[in-house]
Structure formats: structure tokens, C-alpha cells
């Protein structure tokens, strides 16, 4: 099918068909779980680059749900907290609040250089310099920013552990 040329209702039909054609298939399918892993994403004061790449991953160009993940808007529904940004001192309270709202069995994953150790924004009067100031960082996805494909691959790896 060529690009969408028609106008009117027919073009809408083509747009639907295009969207279906794009339905991405996850490269690797995880072993079936009873339910998908709930992801809650929190930006804590970086340049927003990592957060926006995760937003791309959540969008329709990637197969996040087919890979066994679902993004949630309430921390109470989340299994994993994906944290981006350098953790400003003001945001520390928010991180704590969101973390506490998550159910037991939760995991914390630092996405991007800022979230691990502040990256280009190490500790200062306003920043803590990443999660490492609050807790040992056991799960991290490196990059500045990591591409959505890299984030997805890393999440799949982590899900296998």
C-alpha cells in the first residue's frame, strides 16, 4: 500500500490499516506470566531525555505490552519503578512517597546515567547525584539517554532474573 493519499472516510480506513501494519512484534517473547509486570515511570530532575525515550517505548512504535509489561499510572499497581533523572533534593520526598505506595515485591530500576549517579549532574546544593545517594543501585540501564530498544531489551533481561 502506498502512503495515504485519499481524503475523507477512506483515508481513515487506510490510517487504521497502517496502524495495524505497524503493530510491532516483540523480538523475544518472555515466558508467559500470569500477569504483565507493571511499570511506573518517575522523572526526578534530569534533562528529560531518558523519560521521553521511555515515553516513546510506551507508545505504539514498540511492543512493550507484548513483551510482558504494562505501564501504570498509580504506584499501587506497579511492580517496578523506573526512575530517570539525577534525583534533586526536592524530588527525594516524591521518590520515597511513590516507593512506599508500591506493593511488596517491588523493584527499583535506574534508567540512564543521571539516575545511577547523577551523570552530568553530580551531587550539588540542589541534587543528590542519582539514586546511589539513597540506596545501592542494583538494577540499572546505562545510557544518556538509552534508546527505547535498549531499555526494552534491558527490561526483558531483568525480567528473566
Amino acid at each position, binding site marked *: 500500500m502506498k502512503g495515504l493519499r485519499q481524503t475523507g472516510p477512506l483515508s481513515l480506513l487506510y490510517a487504521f490499516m497502517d496502524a495495524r501494519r505497524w503493530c510491532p512484534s516483540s523480538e523475544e517473547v518472555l515466558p508467559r506470566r500470569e500477569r504483565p509486570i507493571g511499570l511506573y515511570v518517575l522523572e526526578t530532575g534530569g534533562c528529560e531525555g531518558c523519560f521521553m525515550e521511555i515515553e516513546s517505548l510506551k507508545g505504539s512504535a514498540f511492543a512493550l505490552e507484548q513483551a510482558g509489561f504494562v505501564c501504570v499510572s498509580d504506584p499501587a499497581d506497579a511492580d517496578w519503578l523506573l526512575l530517570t533523572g539525577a534525583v534533586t533534593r526536592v524530588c527525594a520526598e516524591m521518590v520515597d512517597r511513590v516507593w512506599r505506595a508500591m506493593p511488596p515485591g517491588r523493584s527499583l530500576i535506574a534508567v540512564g546515567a543521571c539516575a545511577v549517579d547523577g551523570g552530568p549532574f553530580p551531587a550539588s546544593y*540542589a541534587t543528590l547525584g542519582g539514586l546511589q545517594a539513597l540506596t545501592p543501585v542494583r538494577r540499572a540501564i546505562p545510557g544518556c539517554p538509552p534508546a527505547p530498544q535498549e531499555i526494552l531489551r534491558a527490561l526483558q533481561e531483568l525480567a528473566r532474573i
Partner: protein
Amino acid sequence: MRSMGRIIRSGERVALSHYHLDPAQWSDMLCVPGATLPLISCWADDARAYVLLLEGDRPILASTVVEDRRYLAPSSRFAGAEWGERVSYDLYGVEAMEARGNGTPALDEGGWTSTWPLSSRPGPASGGLRPLGGSHFLRPEQTGLSGPLDLSFEVLKGKVRAVDVCAGGAHRGVVSRLLGKTPEEAMVLVARMTAGGFVAHPLAFARAVAQARGQVPGPGVRDVWMILLEIERMSLHLFDMARTARGMDAELLATHCDHAREAIAQACAEQGVSRRLMDTVNCGGFREGLEIVPLAQAVHAAMQPSLAALEELHRVFASRLNGFAVLDVRLAERFAVGGVTGRASGRSMDMRRRETGMRLEALRATGSSSGDARARDGLRLAEIRDSLKLMERILGSIGLDDDEPAPDSTDEGIGVAEGARGDVWHWVRLKNGRIENLHVRDPGVSVLPVLGAMLQGCPMERVPAALGSIGLSPAGIAL
């Protein structure tokens, strides 16, 4: 007759567009009858207070001394200066006398290791976080924005009446980290000020540094910069459109935006640059090894086929955006709101038009000036079409334009780049080749004073969708 511009020029000229005013001249500038020049930005440090204004499409910078930590408030004349005064108080402890507004913190929500951290005499830490005023709040993680922004509201019958903003959660102390660095060292961080301007911020900075050094980039560099900026514009417009569409349950449109944006990112990656063009601009020009012609061709080929579908889908869903988050043109003019938000309301300022070497015939985007989310998205699409056209024109005559004459080196420069979300401004002063002083104005700052008016009457649950359609970056606002 005395005009604001004339009073400023009666001061001592210390750089291409910068005039030192004594306190009497400063006061005259703030009181002179007649037209008020549009304010781009206001800031102050321990030593001086500054206002960056627009005279026609040219910047003019006025500054005066700060005495006993005080200066006469620019907000007494320029309503949009209030945010800059609050930021300056939080960072330096300098007070704007006769200021408008309630003087609540812009950045310092408590929790910092000191008060007035950039002052030569910082105060002790203020302890824990301070509660914000207001009766209703959106927690920073609930705004739908890409970064933390504290918003408090006055609400009547579930609808917004007034908004107050505090951006402390996103403040990383970027400016303090840049002082004392060479511009080349600083560029790594400048490229990470906000993902809403991975190209625009470095470009404005590079232009400011070039002016400070008395240099002018050659036509080849200029053309590469223009192309990079247009690629970023298309990508960010698609991002903002996708977010707006999701806020309105127009998932099909969002899907097409996602795919077009990803196609651009892939094209960039395949051409050996980062997906979002991070670290492509440097002070002298652009990243070594960057092949602009194949990059531009690849991005053009990736984007062009999607445009017709996007335009059609926008037409289908646009009625959902009618009358949503409206900016009145008078407010846009008064607060110099730029970018798509300003232009969609009828303020026609586009700083690309004053650039030497710009292929003006490519910039044709026009559309509704109703100031609402529909007009913004319509304009985004028209601007994507223009970006493709502009890239074609540049590729047709790349690097061929005449050189411009270089200004004298004054160690001080102002640079601007018309980013996807508006005009990004950098002012830099060098000393012995290092950054002695710096100010950055992200376009999001000009939206803050009109945010209340734009959200007025909006049901609380729709505020995130409204914010998404405006395209704000907390990281850029707070730095």
C-alpha cells in the same frame, strides 16, 4: 520623544547589544510613558540586574547595579519579569523592590544545602520542604509533563481559576555548574539542559559564544545548524502532538505521530548521529564526521510519506481540541510568548526569519490564530511541512550564501535559536576564555505568566492534557 529604547541606549554600551544603566536611568526605563518593549527575560545576580528586551526583532540588554542586595523591580513595568525576580532571589538572595506578585519561591522549595546558593554570602540550609500555598495541587508526577513541576491551583466548582508554579523539583543548578568552564567544556552540559532542545540550546549557546569571541560561523556551518534545528523541530512537534492526541483519546493520530517520530530517530541513528541529535552542535560548528546531506535526505525520506496521513487525521480529530487551553493574542504579545504557542494565537514572531542565510520562501506556515490546542496542532503540522521544504532548499544551495561581517570581540554575546517550543536565548560573558557569567531563557518561561489564563475554566482532570498541548519542559524552565 523619549522612548524605552532611547533611554537604554543613553547608558554605557559595553557589548554589541548591552547597555549599563545607572540607577536613575534604570528607573527612567521602568517609568517612561509610551510603549513597553517586549521582555524576553529578567534576571539578577549579586552584582547586577538585567532585562533582555526585543526591539523589533533585535535583542537589547539593559543592566544596572544591585546595591545592598536590592534593585528596582523590572516587574513594576514588565509583568513577565516576576518569575526571573523570584528565581534571582532564590539563587542569590537579591531582592526586587516594588515587585509584583506574592514573592513565593520559584525554585527553592526547601531541602537545598544552603539558601541563596549562588550568592557570595549564602545562608544556612532552610531545612525540610516547605508546603506550597493554594487549595488544590497536582503532584509533580501527575502533571503529565516530562519533568517534575509543582502546580497549585485555586479552583471553583472543579474548574481552574488561578495557577501558581514552583519548579524546584527540576532544578539541577545547571548555571552554577557552567561558571568557570570554557565554552567547549560547558557544551556537554548545555546539550543536556532539556530534551526539549538538544539542538536549540547548544545552538543558542554557540551563537552567543561566537558573538562574544567576535566570530561569525561560515555559511556551511550555518546551514548545518539550520538543518539540525529543523529535524529537531519535526521530532518534537510529533512528540507534542502525540501527547495532545492521547490526552484527547485520539489514539490513532498518536500512533501515527509515534511512528513518524521513531522513523526520524532511526534515520538519525542510521546516519551515525544520536537519535535525538544530542551532541551534534559544538561551539565552532558541528560534530566531527557529521554528514549533513545524507542525514537530511534520510530524515526527509522518513518523514515526508507520513505527512498526508497526519494532516488527514488531524482534520478528523481536531474538533476535540476546539477552544481548549486558549491563549489570547494580547497576552501572547504582552508576555512575548513565542514558538507554536505564541504563533497559534496570532503573535507572529519567529526568530528564524532574522537569520542570515535563511531561505525565507520556505517559511510559509500560517493557520488559525484562535490560540487553542487545535490551532497549535494545526501549526505544528504546517511547520513540519515547512521544515521539509526548508531542508530541500538548503540542500539545493548548501554553504553557498555570503559570509556576514564579524562583530568586534567584546567577550560578551547573545545567541538565539528558534527551537520547536519557541525562542531559546543564551547570554554569556567570558573572562580569560572561561564563562564568567551566563543566563539561559528557555521558551517555557514565557508561558508561565499566561498559564493561569490558559487553564482558566479547565476542569482539573483535563489539566495534564492542556499542559501537553502547550509543550512545557520543567527541565528547561528550572535548569
